[in-house]
């Protein structure tokens, strides 16, 4: 079955081409059917491959020669490892549900078919990224998913915020991509190959074909450069600013791309290329610190945001921080496990949020929500499940994976990271339940009419919610002590352990649960029973902190002053030079030619006989010159 893995990206590609051919006025039903069936076929094949890998372990990559440049041969191909078999399954599963969900959410949109085209292209790129056996191919698909993200964030391009967000997403991730690109090029220069296996061998042996840097420093340099790429894609501090803005895209996009799959690509890349990072303790430390900072930083911002999608977006950033932190402390299995569970419950949260937004006419501000439980019971239940999973309440998925990460941080001796993670967990529980209470309980604070008309959407939107809820409940059990850490054994492919694995500490699990419950409790007191007045706190003693969090620690403003402004100024200067110096020279030639032609045009008098005469005299002169040069007739 493994040799047929190339089929999986092929399905969405074919669907994309089909939709492209059908054009933008294709019927919604046909468009959805094609897309969902393609994704579903991919999911089924993924499941078969998953079971195959589970039984037989990883296989060698299937590669073919792509092109030969000089003496360097580049190859393309695909490979199946436990890690990417898991990714394939998750991506195709969530894709199927999101494609289904979009039918309800995007119903009636003028560019419905285009939306599905983009989504299919994205799914193809993401799957291609996952099964790539070499870094070059990874980079190609890496850019493709970035492109799709750009297209989909800016799907409603007529909204200025959406257009700006799309640009921001593209430019900020680009900064990371440059790092990744340099890293890949350096690896190629040093090892002469793009293939994972060859690169890993070289890094293990520490034999590189460059002499301007010591091998150890080289490893650290490359690891950091590749991590910068991951930072951009996975929205790690300080390149996290694009992800919350990307929420301007349609909610299904946020669920698929900016929660479950593409943003996890950075984490996936680090996990896939883990031997490179493992070889450099310094790089791992940096990764751990960045991850920890991101986790706590985004969680703190999430506390005060009022846009339902932005809160969930900041929680995504925070959770990605967790994963990166886990990789930084070598908790490989915990990180990939969290990657999987997070994909389920975060897609669930986004789709539930999308259901809410859809029900109340595309309003996203939780200050104007409330009491929606009565109107949207199913959405409420599924959101609650997602929120519990995110908070890390047993037995939901998030509990098991988050617990593993905290365990890894503690056992690696990095107490600071552990404490940061714990605080972030508290904040996470607080803000997600803040959203829950403000949305589903109390009185509706928006327009009465909207509330009256709010109702549960059709089955295309509820079925994905239910299926994802089930996954959000049970996915965590895969790596629990109850199932003897089945996921770990699977992800290691029956071979030796990657990174570090620790036995479960029950006291730690208890502590994490207590912290999460404390967060929920505080949230309950502030937004449900109203025994603590959040307004008073925000305007009272905690005002500076509140403002800091509400304004996202002024990171955007800082970037604006420190980077955007100077760049714009340089742009102005260069524009001036281009306009007056470069264009001036060009215009000089242009004008000169024009003025010259003003006089010369009179030689074109339209008289054929004049032309003939001039030709004759010219020919005579040429004959004369030729004869003179040769000296007569030879």
């Amino acid at each position: 079955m493994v040799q047929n893995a190339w089929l999986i990206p092929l399905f969405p590609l074919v669907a994309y081409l089909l939709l492209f051919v059908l054009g933008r006025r294709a019927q919604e039903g046909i468009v959805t059917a094609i897309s969902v069936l393609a994704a579903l076929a991919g999911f089924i094949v993924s499941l078969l491959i998953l079971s195959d890998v589970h039984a037989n372990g990883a296989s060698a990559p299937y590669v073919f020669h792509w092109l030969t440049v000089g003496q360097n041969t580049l190859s393309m191909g695909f490979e199946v490892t436990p890690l990417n078999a898991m990714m394939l399954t998750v991506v195709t599963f969530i894709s199927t549900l999101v494609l289904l969900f979009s039918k309800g959410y995007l119903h009636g949109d003028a560019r419905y078919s285009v939306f599905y085209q983009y989504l299919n292209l994205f799914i193809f790129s993401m799957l291609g990224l996952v099964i790539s056996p070499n870094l070059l191919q990874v980079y190609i698909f890496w850019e493709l998913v970035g492109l799709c993200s750009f297209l989909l964030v800016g799907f409603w391009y007529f909204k200025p915020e959406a257009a700006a967000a799309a640009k921001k997403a593209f430019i900020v991730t680009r900064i990371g991509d440059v790092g990744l690109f340099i890293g890949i090029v350096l690896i190629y220069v040093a090892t002469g190959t793009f293939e994972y296996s060859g690169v890993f061998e070289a890094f293990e042996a520490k034999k590189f074909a460059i002499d301007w840097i010591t091998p150890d420093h080289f490893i650290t340099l490359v690891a950091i450069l590749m991590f910068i790429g991951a930072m951009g894609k996975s929205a790690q501090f300080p390149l996290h600013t694009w992800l919350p803005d990307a929420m301007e895209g349609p909610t299904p996009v946020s669920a698929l791309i900016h929660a479950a799959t593409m943003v996890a690509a950075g984490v996936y890349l680090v996990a896939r290329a883990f031997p490179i990072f493992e070889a450099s303790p310094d790089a791992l430390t940096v990764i751990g610190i960045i991850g920890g900072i991101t986790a706590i930083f985004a969680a703190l911002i999430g506390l005060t945001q009022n846009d339902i999608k932005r809160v969930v977006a900041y929680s995504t950033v925070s959770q990605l921080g967790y994963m990166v932190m886990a990789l930084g402390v070598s908790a490989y299995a915990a990180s990939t496990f969290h990657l999987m569970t997070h994909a389920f419950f975060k897609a669930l949260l986004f789709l539930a949020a999308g259901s809410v937004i859809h029900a109340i006419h595309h309003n996203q501000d939780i200050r104007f929500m409330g009491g929606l439980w009565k109107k949207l019971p199913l959405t409420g239940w599924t959101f609650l499940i997602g929120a519990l999973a995110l908070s890390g309440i047993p037995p939901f998925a998030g509990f098991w994976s988050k617990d593993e990460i905290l365990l890894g941080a503690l056992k690696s001796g990095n107490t600071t990271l552990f404490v940061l993670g714990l605080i972030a967990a508290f904040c996470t529980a607080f803000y997600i339940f803040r959203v829950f209470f403000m949305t589903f309980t109390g009185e509706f604070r928006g327009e009465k009419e909207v509330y009256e008309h709010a109702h549960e959407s059709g089955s295309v939107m509820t079925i994905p919610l239910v299926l994802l809820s089930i996954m959000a409940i049970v996915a965590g059990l895969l790596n629990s002590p109850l199932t003897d850490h089945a996921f770990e054994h699977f992800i290691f492919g029956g071979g030796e352990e990657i990174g570090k694995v620790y036995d479960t500490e029950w006291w730690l699990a208890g502590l994490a649960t207590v912290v999460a419950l404390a967060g929920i409790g505080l949230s309950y007191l502030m937004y449900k029973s109203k025994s603590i007045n959040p307004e008073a706190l925000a305007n009272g003693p905690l005002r500076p902190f509140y403002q800091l969090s509400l304004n996202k620690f002024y990171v955007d403003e800082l970037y604006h002053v420190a980077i955007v402004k100077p760049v714009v100024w340089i742009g102005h200067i260069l524009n001036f030079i281009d306009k007056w110096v470069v264009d001036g020279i060009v215009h000089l030639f242009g004008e000169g030619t024009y003025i010259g032609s003003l006089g010369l045009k009179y030689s074109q008098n339209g008289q054929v006989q004049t032309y003939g005469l001039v030709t004759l005299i010219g020919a005579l002169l040429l004959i004369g010159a030729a004869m003179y040069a040769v000296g007569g007739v030879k």
Partner: protein
Amino acid sequence: MFSGLAITGQTVAFFVIALFVIACGVMLLSMKKVIYMALSIGGVFIGCAAVYLMLEAEFLAFIQVLLYAGAITIMMLFAIMLTKHDEIEKPEPITAHPVWAAIGAAGFGLVILWVVKFSGIKWPQATPDSPFQGQDNVKLIGEALFNQYVIPFELVSVVLIVALVGAITLANKEEKN
């Protein structure tokens, strides 16, 4: 210029013919009425046919008379009649153009003359015996045309057809609707 030229019947005939041809050519240039110009070209064509005869190209000489002196000259006359046939070239102020044209044409002629006579090229000496002695000229041409040159021959027929159709299309009056 032609020193050492034996005065034989052939040479005398050649000079007479050559004089006639050149005289007709000069008339072409100097006549005022268009119709006379067209008639003088007929003289040139017939003189050329005589020259062809001297060069032992009997078939071509006949073709020359039929095609040029007959068909083409008549066609010219038709064309002149269809246009302003009584037009006389008006005398006009002398401009630089004809002067330069004369200089150019004369220069070109001088270059050729120089090449022919004074450049020291050894032209092949004319053999008194004709290379086509005792052979039927028409038969020779026919054999060459339908063996060696059959493909150009067919191509030329295509060119003729195209020219014919093109000429008809061009000269045809456009229907006004």
